[in-house]
């Protein structure tokens, strides 16, 4: 009998598991899949290349040179292995949304093209950090620099550039473009570039750039092996500028030019712009729409020799507010959004789950954290006895522990959004960080009784029976209620919700928390000057502490934001803060990823053990994307090392022929002649 039952059970189990296996869609993940960068991209020449039909037509009309002359000797090839749906088809339109006015096209001078992906789409760099999430041992990948080597003493770095890459106007990209971007933008104090001398200073020496020949450059550093420098050579920090376009407007090369004129040399509406990226902006109606079409000179191909990108056009609708991007996706007039605010999750999920929904939502790992920052500065903006008493209290680990024990993190995370998208955080880095190690995290979990006990040990007692603790006798504000002000920027809905949830929890242990929601600019200004008690921030960058050590420790007088030095430079770092700082500083020159990891894990331990900031909850961001889009891995992060359009190369996305939206702007594909009509174009 039992034998028969067990056979039936086994058969049933087999049937169910087969059914589930058949039902479950195959996951197409790429996270930590590749051993080396060359598994993702490499450089290779092909006997024949293919190009999009509209571009081919322009070649036949004699408006563009043949593809072999437009591509470099050895184009950059994205491997088949990183294309989860394989090599693609040409055609179709990608519909997106942006909500920041386009300032102009001179990005090296600090102008934004409107964020929301536009900047990433048109700018290119020497190395790329975006796809590092696909690597088992993440390190920057080659891009326009194909390879590099360190000198023996580690103070020089020689980089080899791709040969024959052309800007979208057909002019060749050379080492002069790198030199111009670095020396005449980054190092020129009068240009508001995205980085400055300070970030390029190692061992008190500003890094020098030597041009060896058109395709070889050499960096000279004041310190041996400053490996963090690779992160200064990626998107935005050193997005390359077209020297042949902008030199003419730079006061260094033109006596009649001004810096104002240089910054605004290429106004937003004077299109097409000269770019190295896969798409060229060709039309812009401010406040309404921007159109990008393929760059016929784009220097990247797939393994079948097809010139990238696959999509023909990108239409960016300009919105009044960033949330419109999500609304457009839900309504069906947009193809992509980032879901960053837990309050939006439910609506997006509800729509995505409908069988006829045109989009899906993919969830990344836990990459963002909401944390409570207490002002630990004993000097900055200390103007009263109350300030003095509070700062002294915040600097006491016993108090920070009491606060941590008072927080019901699971409760707050569930209130933000119940389910697998949020969870408790105990500080340091979010658990999705490549440097996160659970065993190094010291937790002070929810235990209000213990919290009350610690506060009593600190001398606090409710002397007037109003259920709020009173300051001890030896305090300069003895007898007063323990009241703490928490300031928040009004644009951070999720942080405001977390603060509101903290209020009753703090009251439960006798702390009166006054939450003040203020203008974001006011909150930033107050935090920057050290004029705050508590604040809650959303952290996107602590996931990669190696790239952003300033958000973790005291790397300068103004970092970390919750313990800045006073105007006169006074600051008493606590011993654990000094230890964290030294460890973080040492990672800048650590060439071994394993060694770096070990150091950053120690930082995580010190950070959580001492409750440098108090973690509240962590969340996953979602990527809302049209189902017709191919080559989007299921585990694509919206931001890990870079934001989405750089993290997963958009030039590899495609859509099946039957799902392609009708193009409208193929007659705007630029040729060298198109540029000559522009007022600002120098090589007429």
């Amino acid at each position, binding site marked *: 009998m039992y034998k028969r039952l067990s056979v039936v059970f086994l058969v049933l189990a087999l049937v169910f598991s087969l059914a589930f296996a058949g039902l479950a869609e195959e996951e197409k993940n790429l996270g930590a899949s590749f051993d080396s960068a060359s598994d993702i991209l490499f450089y290779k020449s092909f006997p024949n290349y293919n190009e999009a039909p509209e571009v081919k037509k322009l070649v036949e009309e004699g408006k563009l040179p043949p593809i072999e002359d437009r591509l470099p000797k050895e184009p950059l090839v994205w491997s088949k292995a990183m294309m989860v749906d394989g090599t693609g088809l040409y055609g179709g339109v990608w519909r997106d949304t942006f909500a920041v006015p386009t300032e102009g096209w001179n990005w090296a001078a600090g102008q934004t093209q409107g964020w929301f992906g536009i900047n990433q789409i048109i700018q290119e760099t020497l190395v790329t950090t975006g796809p590092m999430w696909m690597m088992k041992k993440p390190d920057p990948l080659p891009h326009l620099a194909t390879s590099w080597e360190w000198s023996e003493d580690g103070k020089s770095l020689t980089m080899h550039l791709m040969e024959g890459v052309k800007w979208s106007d057909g002019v060749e990209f050379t080492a002069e473009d790198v030199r111009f971007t670095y020396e005449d933008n980054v190092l020129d104090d009068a240009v508001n570039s995205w980085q400055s001398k300070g970030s390029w200073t190692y061992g008190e020496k500003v890094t020098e750039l030597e041009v060896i020949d058109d395709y070889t450059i050499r960096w000279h550093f004041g310190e041996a092996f400053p490996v963090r420098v690779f992160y200064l050579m990626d998107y935005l920090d050193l997005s390359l500028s077209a020297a042949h376009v902008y030199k003419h407007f730079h006061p260094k090369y033109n006596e009649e030019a001004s810096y104002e004129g240089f910054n605004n040399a290429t106004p937003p509406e004077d299109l097409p712009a000269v770019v190295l990226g896969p798409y060229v902006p060709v039309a812009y109606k401010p406040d309404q729409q921007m159109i990008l079409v393929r760059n016929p000179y784009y220097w990247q191909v797939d393994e079948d020799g097809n010139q990238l990108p696959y999509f023909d056009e990108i239409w960016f609708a300009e919105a009044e507010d960033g949330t*419109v991007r999500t609304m457009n996706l839900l*309504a069906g007039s947009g193809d992509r959004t980032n879901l960053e605010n837990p309050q939006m999750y439910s609506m997006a999920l509800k729509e995505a789950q409908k069988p006829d929904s045109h989009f899906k939502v993919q969830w990344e790992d836990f990459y963002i954290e909401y944390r409570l920052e207490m002002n630990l500065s004993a000097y900055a903006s200390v103007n009263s006895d109350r300030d003095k008493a509070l700062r002294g209290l915040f600097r006491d680990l016993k108090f920070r522990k009491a606060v941590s024990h008072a927080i019901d993190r699971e409760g707050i995370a569930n209130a933000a959004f119940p389910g697998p998208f949020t969870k408790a955080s105990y500080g340091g880095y979010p658990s999705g960080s490549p440097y996160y190690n659970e065993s190094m995290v010291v937790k002070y979990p929810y235990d209000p009784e213990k919290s009350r006990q610690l506060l009593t040990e600190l001398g606090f007692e409710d002397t007037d029976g109003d259920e709020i603790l009173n300051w001890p006798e030896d305090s300069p504000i003895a007898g007063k209620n323990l009241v703490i002000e928490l300031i928040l920027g009004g644009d951070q809905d999720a942080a405001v919700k977390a603060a509101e949830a903290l209020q009753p929890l703090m009251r439960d242990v006798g702390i009166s928390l006054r939450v003040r929601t203020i203008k974001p600019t006011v909150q930033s200004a107050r935090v920057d000057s050290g004029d705050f008690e508590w604040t809650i921030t959303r952290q996107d960058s602590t996931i990669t502490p190696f790239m952003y050590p300033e958000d973790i420790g005291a790397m300068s007088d103004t970092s970390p934001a919750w313990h800045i030095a006073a105007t006169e430079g006074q600051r008493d770092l606590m011993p654990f803060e000094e230890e964290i700082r030294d460890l973080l500083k040492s990672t800048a020159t650590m060439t071994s990823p394993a060694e770096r990891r070990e150091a950053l894990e120690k930082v995580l331990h010190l950070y959580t053990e001492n409750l440098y900031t108090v973690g509240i909850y962590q969340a996953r961001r979602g990527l809302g994307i049209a189902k017709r889009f191919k080559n989007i891995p299921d585990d694509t992060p919206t931001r890990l090392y870079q934001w989405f359009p750089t993290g997963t190369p958009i030039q590899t996305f495609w859509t099946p022929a039957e799902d392609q939206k009708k193009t409208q702007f193929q007659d705007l594909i630029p040729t060298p002649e198109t540029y000559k009509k522009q007022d600002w174009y120098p090589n007429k």
Partner: protein
Amino acid sequence: MLSYIGRRVLYAVPLLILISFVSFLVISLPPGDFMTTLQNELMNQGGLSREEAQKIADRMREKYGLDKPFVLQYFTWLSGVVRGDFGYSFQYKKPVSEIIWRRLAWTLLIALSCHLLSVIGGVLPGIYSATHQYSLSDNFFTFLAFLGLSIPNFFLALALMYILVFWLGVEHVGGLFSPEFVMRSWSWAKLVDFLKHFWIPVFVVGIAGTARNMRVMRGNLLDILGQQYIQVARAKGLREDLVILKHALRNAIQPIVMYLGMSLPFLIQGAIVTSIVLNLPTTGPMFYKAIVSQDMYLAGSFLFLIAVTLVAGNLLADLMLAWIDPRIRYE
């Protein structure tokens, strides 16, 4: 009459200077400035460290004189305004006047259409309601008017968008055009697409004004219809339509005319929240963004323009009243 207008304009000058000073002061009062917004943007979008971002922000402050005392900043801006230069918008990286003009055409079109809707759609049913007091249709209009008055227009916009998108499956409702029509030159298809979008803001914003005008018209006309000169007109044997349109309406419409003058600033301001909800390229959302990010020359200039239109609107309303009502004389 001319000397009256001259006097009114002269009185307006110190008033406008005072308004501009107060509005400039209010914008500058909170700590931080536009460069704080820039700094946040550099950190959040550009991925810069706080320290690097702060350095760039400080450099920009120096460049644009934001590190100078408030009074100096104010007078520099005011002297520019006198010369027709409203200053520079940090956010748009363009002269303020250029940005305002760019958005003014759509704003005026929408606002004028809303006014038209509210006057025609409000006055006519108002007259009907007053002349058919307590009838079924009067009650119906009254119900509609209360509904229109009590629903905030941004909420109506949200509800309407929800219904159009999720119930009726309309793919694109925000803005003034579908994405495929924005860049096209004007054609029949583009006009149809425009009208498909345009009716939403006009309906949403215009509905409150319509409801208000309906109530005001009904109330006033009822008062007037009870007065003796109307009885005299009727006793003379005048036709009822003449009694109402020629004698009663002229007096009853005065508050609506007065209100139209006072709402002139609305023409350039637009309905801010509704415009944000409906993603309209009008001046309202731009003003809101300028206030939030402390883009002070843009916000200050805009407040100044609103003040100018308010003063001008009041003057115009007074003049129109004199034209409608022969009893009013300003000499």
